[in-house]
């Protein structure tokens, strides 16, 4: 399979981090991977996204123009990327911040109140992990256990006391989506 995933949200929501995490996990599972960021002019705030490719074959282009999956952590991201998602693709919407009607019928869409769930778990900052967990629950990209296993390599040492929180957030998202499926 050739997964082409876009993760997007406000700067500060941690979309780059979950992109890196997923890429790492892909590499650890022996797949071909790439990760490509995209920022606006703002240093903080604004909207940022990254494109992750995970594939069994060498990756032709790190640029994702027709994603097979999208995580939209805020409204502008939903608006921009839900349109270009391929038919049959998966869309994870952070419904804590994005309330939309009339989602395209030809895709698999999941609304997860990621910020609320994260808050419940202990900190809004892991809303990104809830979303990534959700994606892992829908699409067969990598094992969630691989992702949890590489957490210590991706997350900076000074945040290692939060490893467990991150893992729980990943699992929570995963479960929520499984329940919806």
């Amino acid at each position, binding site marked *: 399979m050739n997964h082409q995933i876009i993760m997007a949200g406000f700067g500060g929501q941690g979309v780059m981090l979950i992109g*890196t995490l997923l890429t790492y996990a892909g590499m650890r599972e022996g797949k071909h*991977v*790439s990760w490509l960021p995209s920022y606006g002019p703002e240093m903080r705030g604004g909207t940022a996204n990254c494109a992750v490719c995970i594939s069994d074959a060498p990756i032709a282009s790190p640029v994702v123009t027709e994603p097979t999956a999208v995580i939209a952590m805020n409204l502008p991201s939903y608006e921009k990327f839900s349109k270009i998602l391929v038919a049959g693709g998966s869309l994870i919407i952070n419904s804590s911040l994005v309330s939309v009607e009339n989602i395209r019928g030809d895709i698999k869409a999941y609304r997860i109140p990621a910020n609320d769930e994260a808050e419940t778990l202990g900190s809004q900052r892991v809303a990104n992990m809830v979303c990534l967990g959700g994606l892992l629950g829908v699409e067969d990209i990598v094992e969630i256990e691989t992702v949890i296993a590489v957490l210590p390599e991706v997350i900076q040492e000074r945040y290692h006391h939060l490893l467990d929180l991150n893992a729980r957030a990943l699992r929570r998202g995963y479960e929520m989506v499984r329940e919806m499926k």
Partner: protein
Amino acid sequence: MSQPILMKGNEAIAEAAIRAGCRFFFGYPITPQNEIPEYMSKKLPEVGGVFVQAESEVASINMVYGAAGAGARVMTSSSSPGISLMMEGLSYIAGAELPCVIVNISRGGPGLGGIQPSQADYFQATKGGGHGDYKVIVYGPCSVQEACDLMVKAFDVADKYRNPVMILGDGMIGQMMEPVVFRGGQGEGSLPEKPWATTGNEGRKSNLITSIHLDPEVLDAHNWKLCQKYKAIEENEVMYEVYREDDAEWFLVAYGTVARICISVMDKMRKEGFKVGLIRPITLWPFPKAAFEQVADRAKGFLCVEMSTGQMVEDVKLAVEGRAPVYFYGRTGGAVPLPRAIEKRMRDVIEGREPVVTDYLEGRGGGVK
């Protein structure tokens, strides 16, 4: 062989340089290559090297001149507007025959332009953006791994010919993360001797690093001597890949990350029965004319795809010499050519249709010239 590591292109390039024995870095911040100086500022001191943040790109390239003349393995990196500021210094380095490596992680221009990937500095890199007759060896890597491998090669080739070498990577090469394995890099120990370097004339005649030759006959001779060197480089250092040489009749031509996009187009079109192949120059100067010779008998046409309004297309035409038509498709300023648009353009080429510009557009841009 060691396990691959996931690394951002810029950091991988910096690490490769250090492994190649580069111990001196002079540079000035500019997006999208900041991770290179940042990495160097952290790592060089650990290996006994020196990182200096210069006051400008003009200063950077002249610090490189000084360090190269003093015998060091030295590099700088920047992005498009910063590289433009280095043109005088680069011409001096080429004129004085000093070895060094310059990385251009290029972005959209002209002017301040944007910070997204672009290939619009091709002319500047390959034809000589500075004054006078000189040539810079230019590599156009298509992946983080290739960027690292070429980085190591760049230092060796620079020393071999006493000539500046440029790595021309589009912004994607710098910004993306891919797995990379570091190989090669002879380390500090076995670097070539530089008896011409200014190290103090204790026990020998004075050494001089200069590019001034006021006597026209002397300067003329110097220029033709450089020309001989460039001829040797053209003979020895050309690098390229040809895909589907066996049966292809229509060739995509692309370098850097665009080549990867073109490979996906090629694969798709072949499944649909089109005899499409691809030529991927790795050295942009010297330009791989040989690749075009190789396929000259069979080639019905070439489609050059670039993230520019069409620069390499001139070199392709010079290589093809009228033996087959050469077409062009491009996007600029950070807009990336879409597989769909490239495919459409290639079909039009094969099926002999005039391009309709709007067919290839995703946004407000153009693309066909």
